[in-house]
């Protein structure tokens, strides 16, 4: 699959990390790790800025984290007008890795709080777009 399938609406068609979308299709949320120096990246990168290596492998992201912060958008940018309200947040996996995504609509907005335990899962939209979201742990 091409990277244009990623997210509610993608702004990038071609990237060496497009396999990320195929992995999402298989139910996996993965980052990349440098085989030379061990640096881990999420979102994934195809090149290591720590040691300049291009030798990267995929690894499964942790699933248990806490919600570091979040916001609920009541107004959307051009192209996303049908979506509000939607909540986006940052998950801290407490091992050096963090992740930014929308929170599942299944979580009532009033229940969302800084520090809550969360997990992540892949997500398919009706129009065939594919993404990942933050869910309650």
């Amino acid at each position, binding site marked *: 699959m091409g990277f244009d399938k990623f997210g509610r609406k993608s702004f990038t068609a071609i990237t060496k990390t497009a396999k990320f979308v195929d992995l999402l299709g298989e139910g996996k949320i993965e980052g990349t790790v440098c085989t030379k120096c061990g640096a881990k990246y999420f979102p994934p990168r195809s090149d290591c800025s720590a040691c300049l290596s291009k030798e990267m492998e995929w690894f499964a992201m942790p699933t248990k984290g806490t919600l570091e912060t979040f916001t609920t958008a*009541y107004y959307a940018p051009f192209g996303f007008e049908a979506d509000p309200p939607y909540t986006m947040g940052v998950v801290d996996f407490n091992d050096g890795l963090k992740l930014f995504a929308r929170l599942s609509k299944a979580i009532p907005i009033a229940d969302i709080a800084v520090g809550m335990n969360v997990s992540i899962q892949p997500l398919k939209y009706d129009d065939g777009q594919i993404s990942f979201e933050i869910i309650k742990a």
Partner: protein
Amino acid sequence: MAKDVAVIGVGQSNFVRGYEGSIRELAFEAFREAMQDAGITQKDVGASIFCSAPEYDKQRSPAGVLAEYLGLIPQPTFYIETVCSSSSSGVKVGYSMIKAGLHDVVVVLGFQKMSEITSSESQERMGRGADIQWEAPFGTMMPAYYALYAQAYMAKNGLTHEDMMNVRLKSATYGQVNERAVYRKGIKAADFDPNNKDAKMAGPVAWPIRVGDACANADGSSCIILANAEKAKAFAKKPVWIMGIGGASEAVNMAARPDFAKGLSVGYGAAAEAYKMAGITANDVKVAEVHDCFTIAELMAYEGLGFAKMGEGKELIRAKETYKEGKIPVNVDGGLLSKGHPIGATGGSQMRTIVLQLRDEAGPMQVPGNPDIGLVHNVGGVGLYGSVTIFGR
């Protein structure tokens, strides 16, 4: 204090919604005022630098077009961009060119005509000033990014909505007396009250950021004319010297950001570098302009600049210490919140305010006590680029 590079002329257009003219005509407004302020002609200018954020108007490579319109050809000209801090970056480059001896006088002109596109298109453009590959697909926009910081501050630092509102009430106090500001109306606490159906500032944009927490989009231009010591002494009655310049950058993706409750790292980094170069500390600053694109951004700036300890920025606004009569007056021209934020013009406009303050020419916004050192803090994107510039008499 090193007296190598001075500001010899400042200019700014009115900041307005829907400027009735093209970007050339908009640029001319600030340029004309700055040239008249400096008392020079185009023959005295060695080079020009133009600054804006792309994709608001249709002109590609605007430097050549604008240089011609302003009568600045055949001198060299080029374009500099760091989104909202573009004109601060332009001044840094202009300073370097003069310091290197390449030119005696350099014009730095910032401009932005935001009204050619709709507000939701503008949100999309600004959102794409962040990570378009990994974040824009979620529907990000500037208020949402800053709301992530505000939420963390509320949860961990005891920041309240009332604190954020008080920043906006201060800005509106000075926007009312700044005839160049886009938002001239007064604002009162009732305007933020969700139980008041007429409360125009209370509506949520990206919670916890409300309408009243966000700056005003505007069309505008700014112009800063820099000169070396020899020309500054020849041309300027009251030269204002650049004492220190600092800059920093940060990871674009929120997943690579440090603790959100600690604010924007670029504020700390740029300030440390600028203070070191100027040989001063935060206590020496008598008046400051900070990047208040959202109310939370001003509170974070207090901390990054060392006016307050980390997490304690709210105490300054609670005690009204950043009003004109306070310990460290901040954004007493209305700031981005009320004066307006025409992206590429913002840094130059902040610098114009500080130069006028140090020349004791700020009119109803003048800080008492004849301030001798002023500071400009200008941020590009969501703390992607940081710039701090320190000025002295």
